[in-house]
């Protein structure tokens, strides 16, 4: 169906930027203050190669500063690579900057001509497209008003309508699909789909992985100037999100460690003296047996950030103030809204914990934590056989779960989707 013809061929391109510490573009300064001309060379792209076929929609993803926008700029020929080659076939229209050359004092009509001319259209070509542009922008009533009287939404609509009606063979889009209201956005996407069906090649740079999954056939994930994955959109997006999750986890752990150092000295004071009334409802009991501390950890180390599928272990340390025959230790996982996800204690699980020593430790373990991404809180309690609370903590602490499963809800349930088609549509 689609003509397998290479329309973009990028071969081994590199791009360096000079980052000046104190840039001067004046001749005098260049000569007088040679020391100020120091700069650092930053390699933004380190040898990227990819081909894009006619009619493909390709998304470029990556974290900030990874070089994806630079790649797009190189494709439009706004910039040139330091080495390597880029070959493109056909007219390129870029939706990097909308409304280039718009003059606020000129009417919408005149600005359509100016703007379209910047895309390299001749007067005849613009005349032929004029009605389409106006129809798409839905601005026919305001056509003879100067642009400065337009709202920003109208401005973007006009600009987008021009850019999209250029009849490009290759369309490059950079994070600008946030134009206009929801209706207009839907219209833009419908138009883009239509163009794709005609065989227009589309390259999109965006942070919104949803857009890429919905719209693109393929995606290229660029990280630190190199291509990590180039393949079907879903696979690339998944890989990218997995990478981003692990990075998030890392930075959270670092933050946690920093905070721990800060928190430690004041922790005890805070818990005992201040906010008594609030503490009372969150922490109560007869104190005959008290919880000394609860350590939350995964298999290796203490943490309150878990990945879906991790082991979650609670070490509950208790101290006996008044001799009891038996104690019941309980726990609960709650959402931040207070919905109970799991509540359990040793009695429910038919365990008996006779009290013999003055202190002790109870271990609670969840292997393969099924929770979805989000923040949760932990309750812990020690009650006697009749259920009288001896030491009860509501929201003892919060913990965070990070998940690869992108479902919504609370619990990750293994699932698959299957499609069966019976009849082809005529």
């Amino acid at each position, binding site marked *: 169906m689609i003509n397998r013809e290479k329309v973009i061929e990028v071969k081994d391109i590199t791009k360096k*930027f*000079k980052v000046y510490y104190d840039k001067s*573009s*004046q*001749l*005098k300064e*260049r000569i007088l203050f040679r020391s100020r001309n120091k700069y650092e060379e930053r390699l933004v792209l380190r040898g990227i190669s990819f081909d894009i076929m006619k009619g493909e929609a390709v998304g470029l993803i990556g974290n900030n500063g990874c070089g994806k926008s630079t790649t797009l*700029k190189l494709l*439009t*020929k*706004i*910039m*040139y690579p330091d080495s390597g080659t880029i070959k493109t076939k056909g007219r*390129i229209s*870029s939706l*990097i*900057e909308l409304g*280039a*050359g718009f*003059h606020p*004092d000129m009417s919408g009509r005149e600005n359509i*001509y*100016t703007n*379209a*001319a*910047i*895309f*390299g*259209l*001749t*007067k005849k070509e*613009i005349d032929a497209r004029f009605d389409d542009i106006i129809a798409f922008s839905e601005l026919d009533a305001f056509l003879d008003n100067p642009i400065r009287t337009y709202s920003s939404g109208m401005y973007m609509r006009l600009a987008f309508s021009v850019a999209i009606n250029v009849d490009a063979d290759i369309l490059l889009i950079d994070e600008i699909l946030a134009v206009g209201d929801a209706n207009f956005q839907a219209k833009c996407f419908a138009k883009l789909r239509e163009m794709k069906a005609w065989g227009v090649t589309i390259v999109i740079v965006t942070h919104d992985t949803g857009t890429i999954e919905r719209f693109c056939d393929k995606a290229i994930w660029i990280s630190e100037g190199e291509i990590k994955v180039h393949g079907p959109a879903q696979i690339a997006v998944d890989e990218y999100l997995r990478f981003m999750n692990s990075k998030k986890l890392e930075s959270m752990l670092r933050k946690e460690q920093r905070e721990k150092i800060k928190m430690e000295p004041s922790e005890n004071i805070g818990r005992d003296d201040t906010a008594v009334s609030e503490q009372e409802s969150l922490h109560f009991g007869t104190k005959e047996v008290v919880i000394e501390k609860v350590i939350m950890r995964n298999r290796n180390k203490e943490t309150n950030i878990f990945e879906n599928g991790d082991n979650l272990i609670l070490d509950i340390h208790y101290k006996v103030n008044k001799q009891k025959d038996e104690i019941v230790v309980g726990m609960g996982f709650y959402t931040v809204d207070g919905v109970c996800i799991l509540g359990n204690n040793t009695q429910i699980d038919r365990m008996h914990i006779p009290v013999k020593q003055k202190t002790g430790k109870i271990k609670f373990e969840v292997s393969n934590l099924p929770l979805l991404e989000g923040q949760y809180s932990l309750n812990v309690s020690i009650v006697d056989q009749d259920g009288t609370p001896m030491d009860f903590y509501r929201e003892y602490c919060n913990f965070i779960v990070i998940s690869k499963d992108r479902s919504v809800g609370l619990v990750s349930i293994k699932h698959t989707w299957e499609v069966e088609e019976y009849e082809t549509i005529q």
Partner: protein
Amino acid sequence: MLMIEMIKEVYAYRQMIFSLVRKELRGRYKGSFFGFFWTFMNPLLQLIVYTVVFSVILKSPVEKYYLYLFAALVPWIFFSSSITGGSSSVIASKDMVKKIYFPREVLPISYVTSSFVNMLFCFIVIFFVMLVSRSKFNFMALLCLPVVMIVQYILCLGCAMLTSALTVYFRDLEYILGIITMAWMYLTPIMYTIDIVPVSLRPIFNMNPMTPIVTVYRDILYHGRVPKLGTLLFGFILGVFVLVVGCCVFRKLQRHFVEEL
């Protein structure tokens, strides 16, 4: 080979040049009471000032000195504005250059073209003055006018290509060029006749590409005689040379415009 490609590309963007020229011409006197009328008013008032100064205060031996001066000054203004104004033409559109692709040559071309069109309007004033002062109209000579205009256009475009590309890298050039063009004006026989220049210095004067061009304009408009083709040919060769060099330099330098802007 590269040249042909460039010309093709620029030709494809002719509508952009056209709309930029129109914007420049219309925008120049925007907001003023007389508006576009200033395009004619401005040279006419200048002419009146020169006439008063040089026929009342500084009496010049040259007959109809105002026309003598004006026939050279109007082309000179086109030339000097191409150099100084042209030098900032890329920087002035830096937002566009940074964000969107188009052959960058379009910018100096449209600036020079708008200056050229402005000169054409001034010529209407000159013709009007020639009529009023009952100067000699030589139709054969007037036919040569488009030729010299094209020659000058080529020269101006070449200079603007050079200065616009270089100014992106050295911003000071914009101000240095202001001084250079002022000095250049006094080194070109505009205010005076070439006859008062010492013969020993004449070769240097003739190296100046504007000298033959100004001489030709004056031949046509003031003396009413058909100019010598040899004079023009030198200007033409020099103009083409500057343009080719200018285009090559521009092509090379424009690759890093975005990073420098």
